[in-house]
């Protein structure tokens, strides 16, 4: 009996407290998100970025690209070029080979040089603002030739590189590639439009066959360190998904191979993991870059880049869609709409149809002019060039 009494009392008390609670809840509680921009981030963090390598091949040009980093909030798309710097290759035992600026680009190129591969070389940079940068002297490492670039297409297309170093010195490699593919207009036409007139295209201004070239976007690193011999037998360079528009006719890939020292390999590995994606659950942890370029005039200034002295090896292969099995041909995302208009009169080649999404496709003799979606007639609208690259069939 006693217990029940307590119970009733309890409930009454609780009700009472709910009333009090209502008063409190009227006061809003706030979580707030503020911009976090400490001086470390907002200071002009324009650190020097050195991109390139010392080319020790016979009679070769060494090119470096110098840029500055931009702040996190800076929406400049590419790096800020470092103009007006003085750059030179310095030999460890003496000798200096200056690089001349390609005005306005931030690129610096040497004369064709033949450097002694038994010596060590470094890079010396005096930035436009007077900051002095020096790289560590690095030994030369000759890149072995590429043994083969080959592909397999179980379903997706996989492209591989293979190499080996008979001396066993080179165990680490970096690859870059340029891929070129032919992409043709969906609909055939001979007609083009210029200055309000329809004209017949020739091979110089054709819009039927286009070729697009792209460079590798990811950092490709290979190592034979764990192998018993210095052999890279099938390093996967890239995977082209089955049905990808890059391989509808002919696809070409030019692969560049550079030998790396272990230190350079480790550096590039970190660069490879450096991600601009931030804030999601699956992001990688922050990276830390320690290159071999230092600011000697102000040791507190970092510099980004890792200098190697090596040669470049390259090899190109062609891949034809016709040699694939079960390669899908996906319809493009855009559709090809058509319409027809009365041709110009009296001059049928006068063209002033206002909708530029359409272009002349063909004339029906005695009838209308048939128009189709421009994107289906002009492959240049999807990028690339209409000039056949010499290596493309």
């Amino acid at each position, binding site marked *: 009996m006693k*217990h029940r009494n*307590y119970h009733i*009392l*309890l409930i009454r*008390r609780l009700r009472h*407290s*709910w009333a*009090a*609670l209502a008063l*409190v809840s009227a006061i*809003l*509680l706030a*979580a*707030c*998100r*503020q*911009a*976090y*921009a*400490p001086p*470390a*981030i907002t200071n002009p963090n*324009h*650190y020097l*970025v050195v*991109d390139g390598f010392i080319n020790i091949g016979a009679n070769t040009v060494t090119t470096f690209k110098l840029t500055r*980093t*931009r*702040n*996190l*909030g800076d*929406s400049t798309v590419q790096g800020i070029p470092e103009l007006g710097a003085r750059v030179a290759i310095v030999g460890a035992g003496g000798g200096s080979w200056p690089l001349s600026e390609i005005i306005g680009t931030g690129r610096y190129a040497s004369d064709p040089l033949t450097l002694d591969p038994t010596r060590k070389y470094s890079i010396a940079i005096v930035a436009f603002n007077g900051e002095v940068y020096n790289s560590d002297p690095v030994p030369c490492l000759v890149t072995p030739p590429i043994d083969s670039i080959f592909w397999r297409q179980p379903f997706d297309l996989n492209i591989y590189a293979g190499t080996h170093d008979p001396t066993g010195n080179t165990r680490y490699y970096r690859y*870059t590639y340029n891929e070129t593919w032919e992409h043709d207009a969906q609909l055939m036409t001979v007609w083009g439009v210029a200055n309000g007139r329809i004209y017949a295209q020739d091979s110089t201004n054709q819009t039927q066959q286009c070729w697009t070239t792209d460079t590798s*976007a990811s*950092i490709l*690193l*290979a*190592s034979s*360190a*764990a192998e018993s011999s210095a052999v890279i037998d099938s390093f996967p360079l890239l995977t082209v998904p089955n049905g990808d528009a890059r391989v509808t006719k002919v696809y070409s890939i030019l692969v560049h191979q550079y030998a790396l020292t272990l230190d350079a390999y480790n550096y590039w*590995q*970190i*660069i*490879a*993991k450096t991600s*601009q994606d*931030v*804030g*999601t*659950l*699956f*992001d*990688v*942890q*922050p*990276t*830390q*870059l*320690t290159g071999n370029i230092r600011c000697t005039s102000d040791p507190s200034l970092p510099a980004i*880049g890792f200098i190697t002295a090596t040669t470049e090896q390259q090899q190109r292969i062609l891949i034809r869609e016709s040699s694939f099995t079960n390669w899908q041909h996906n319809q493009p995302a855009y559709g090809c709409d058509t319409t027809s208009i009365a041709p110009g009169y009296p001059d049928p080649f006068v063209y002033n149809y206002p909708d530029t999404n359409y272009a002349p496709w063909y004339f029906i003799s005695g009838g209308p002019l048939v128009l189709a979606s421009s994107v289906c007639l002009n492959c240049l609208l999807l990028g690339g060039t209409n000039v056949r690259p010499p290596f493309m069939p």
Partner: protein
Amino acid sequence: MRCRPIRLLLYSACLVLSLQARAQLEPTVTGNFEGYTFGRLTARIETVTGYRFYYDPADFDSLSIEMTLNRATVRQILDELFQNTDFHYSIDSGKRIFITRHVTIVTTLPARFGGPVSAPGSKGQAVFATDDEQPEKARLKQMLAENRVYDIGARTATVGQGKATVAGYVKDDNTGEPIVGATLFADGSATSVATDQFGYYSLTLPKGRHLIRLTDAGMRDTRRQIVLYSDGRLNIDMQEAVTTLRAAIVSAEKTSNTKSVQMGVNRLNIRTIRQVPVVFGEADVLKVVLTLPGVTSVGEASNGINVRGGSTDQNLTLFDGATIYNPTHLFGFFSSFNPDVVKGIELYKSAIPEKFGGRLSSVLDISMPDGNTKKWSGVAGIGPLTSKLSIEGPIQKDRTTLVAAVRTTYSDWLLNSLPASSAYNNSSANFYDANLRITHRIDEKNTLNIMGYYSADRFRLGNDTTYKYTNASTNLKWKHIFNNRSNALFTAGIDRYQYNISDSRDSTNGFRLGFQIGQTYFRSEFTFAPDNKNQVSYGLSAVYYKLHPGTYSPEGEKSLIVDSTLPAEQGLESAIYLGDQYSVNNRLTISGGLRYSVFNYLGPHDVYNYAPGLPRELNTVIDTAFYSGGKIIKTWSAPEVRISARYAVSENGSIKASYNTLEQYIHMLSNTVSVSPTDIWKLSDAHIRPQHGRQVSFGYYRNFLSNKVETSVELYYKWIDNYLDYKSGANLLLNPHIETDVLETKGKAYGVELLLRKTEGKFNGWLSYTWSRTLLRQDDPLAGQLISNGNWYPASFDKPHNLNFIANYRFSHRYSMSVNMVYSTGRPITLPLAVFDLDGSPGLYYSQRNQYRIPDYFRTDASFIIDGNNRLTQKLHNFWTVGVYNLTGRKNPYSVYFIQENGTIKGYQLSIFGTQIPFITYTIRF
């Protein structure tokens, strides 16, 4: 009415005004009369005051005086002495004092050992104000027990030679709840023992007559007089000390920090915990632990605590024996322990007893009450965020008791009320937890405990990602007493911690990521006290781990995510230990222990083998070995040493030193890049070595003002081996070869901890300051990467300065106020500084590891507690807590994170409670 404190051991009272006025004119007595006989006391009073005493000495020969007087008049002394006894006194004009025994009282105090006792009648001489808080009955009971002489063992005509052991339970007289950590002093302070987690004690003494004094923080000191004939049992009830305005209770011999052999251990009972104001008035175990010296947390909200430069995973959090992997609720703002079912906490920072192991930094041992054995009672509370209800009581009187509690939140409204601009108004957060504990006393020698615990959290920040986690534990304990000198505790149980993160937007990226740790364990702990000088403990334990390190599955119909599940990991951690606490003499106590732990990493699992002498990377994998179920893949083992010593330099001061080594076989890595950190736990395996820690520490403890003020200085230095940190650009989630993304670092941590604490009085509280550093180093080039060029770098939880101030002031019985101030250096962070373009692709340039710090943390909270009433006799007690969290409104960052917005990267700091948060809670006890 101004009251002058009269300090009395037995109880406290306040004189009425008239008496106070008279007291000014009469001669007074000041001094410590501990252990005086009545004759000696009267002789002293006679000397000081000129009074003469007339009495029969035979009446007083078993009465021992326990008094500390401060300008007390003779009347005050006598009133105090004879309160509730059958003695009368009268004072004539000639300053003669006649002491007589009331004729109507049948019994008197025993004149000889162990005389029969029955309750004396109440006599009530109304010079003292009636003290509601100490019911007459309880006071009489205490008085009676204290003045009675107990026979222990079979009574014989003469007391024999040699030693015997008295053992038993110390319990709260009111609730029957065992009192943990109460100290028993025999014959002054020559011999002392403490009660164990069941309130059990064992005291070996020479046969004969002894006075045993009991003290415990928050309980009224008491004493027992015994005659020890042979081994026997004595259960002792203690009464709760009701803090009053009128006088402070001062114990001559309390369980002070100078007396305990352990160093680097903090004990707090729930009464202390409740006094600290915390967010929304919810008493909170972890928040109070965070105010202790040497304890910090990474942020306002983080999954746990950092103790002495250790990481959060280096703490073993035991809740009634169950390991809790995530001890927090709601972004870490609440601990997942309902304060109504917390009895007390012990935090071991340096001298970690050998029975504990498996973590490097600390052991946080949280105990639950057994439950009221006498009557049903409970607590109901209601606040702006949580409601809770707990009940406890006897299912079967004096045999089976139950404690049950639930706590739940309705905090969604809080987040929904956030301004739309905060981007978090579409958030939600809620949690609940439930506890159940049943204690069954089979007989005098066997007790069983069953506990169950479940806590669950669910929160969503912004629109997309929902985080959920749960802790679930259950265990069974059997306490068996072999004899007065040895007993054992067997525990078997299961713990499970799991979390999952899901993105339930109906998109192609909808996913669910799950993670789970399960452990099954058995522990046996034996204690054996051959004599009072030695306290031997030994035992063995085994934990079987099963981790599901990641399941990733599509969520929603449109999701294109492909299922992937990492294989489970298994491990068995076993340990055997032996230790002894040896009292060399009154001043020097040494405690030494050895623990040997073995860890087996078990199949089924694939193991990658890497080329020897090369960094572990996918490129250096030589082959993969498959181990089938139950196969031992790798065994790690190590001895662990625990040594500590105390030396009492004076009555009030002692020095302590300790040396510890510990091993840890389970590691946590925090994925800190996202808004809400996600943790990955990993067992030591064929590649990841156990963490190994060594610590030396040294402390000086000094008490002032009759132990009312405690001060301590502790210094420590720690070496940590194989602490896991991530490599640059590591991928931690769903990584089947995590050994390629982590590094083993060396760590060192050192610091100074200062504590100033006033334990009693109207004004109490503490001030703690810690200066500490934790530095890590990775200088092995073979590991693949150097961090910070191989130099020492701060750990992500390195926070050099920590200051905590907690003060409580009691204005009256009904009103009290608490203030809490926290300052700490901001935690280190690795900042992205700039964007570079190299080889055609942009990348982020980061600072050196942990080179920068987020803004310092500072917060002040204040709360005001209003007691509805304060009569012990009243059936219902209720109180209000009103207060303000973050009084200064400082926007302390909960997390700092970077996201990509419109092609640029923006940094944000999120403060969840970045403004003054007023709160009010209502609690009712029945």
